[in-house]
């Protein structure tokens, strides 16, 4: 399945948001996810299923004023 993660197309073999986040970062605190422009709360990550073509943003803390 192909999804667009942080602007780049990726072939993924995971089906949940939780699985995708685990591939990108080991951190949990300070991480937030949006799929197709909608916030997916952390509590929903295990149940939230990815679909082919989804646009996923996986975000975390960065320096900023």
């Amino acid at each position: 399945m192909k999804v667009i993660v942080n602007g780049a197309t990726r072939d993924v073999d995971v089906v949940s948001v939780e699985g995708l986040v685990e591939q990108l970062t080991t951190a949990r605190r300070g991480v937030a996810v949006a799929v197709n422009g909608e916030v997916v709360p952390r509590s929903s990550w295990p149940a939230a299923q990815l679909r082919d073509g989804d646009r996923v943003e996986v975000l975390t803390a960065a320096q900023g004023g």
Partner: protein
Amino acid sequence: MFGESRLILGTGGAESLAALEAAIVASGTELVTVALRRVDAAGPGLLPMLDRLGMRILPNTAGCYTAADAVKAAHLARDAFETDLVKLEVIGDERTLLPDGVELLRAAETLVADGFQVLPYTSDDPILARRLADVGCAAVMPAGAPIGSGLGISNPHHIRLIRDSVDVPVVLDAGIGTASDAALAMELGCDAVLIASAVTRAVDPARMAAAMRHAVEAGRLAFGAGRIPKRYHALASTSDEGRPAW
């Protein structure tokens, strides 16, 4: 809300995490801003360092140009950092980075209804500040001058008018270039200042952070002490009484 130091430190612009950490410690701050960016670009280490120092996090919505984007960014930040605090930024254009008042007010209203403690980065317009307070913002954060400009407080009279026209804390945000600017903000009655570039981009960030800490404290003391009124002619400090005749 912003701690005893009355100094919120913005973490943007630091050359390294080590330099940022030294500045945070020297500033005495308890509350620092962070942005949300893509994990592949953000780099690790910032949050663990802030946690280690016991900092509270004030997430910002930097880079948002519409109310809808800022509301989304705030919700993502709340999920990431488990805080209701948000520094609400809705920028009007890239050149000035000044806030878009219409979008800002709209976003503030939505986020207050969603249960956030909204700290909006606003212009030095007293009427807009009042409108933001009226919709339930937890504080207002007027710009002294454009972000990163270091120009100081362009219109001190408006900052004072804002102080007089809202019942929520006023935090001078943006424009501070050096310690005297921070002191002036506090002398005008601001409850706190938010400083980023002036510290993180100084030649010696930790030393400037210490200077800001003292400036904020001095300005606050001076405000509380009640300064003498300005006058156009001299007023002798030595009494004429008992003056000898030669």
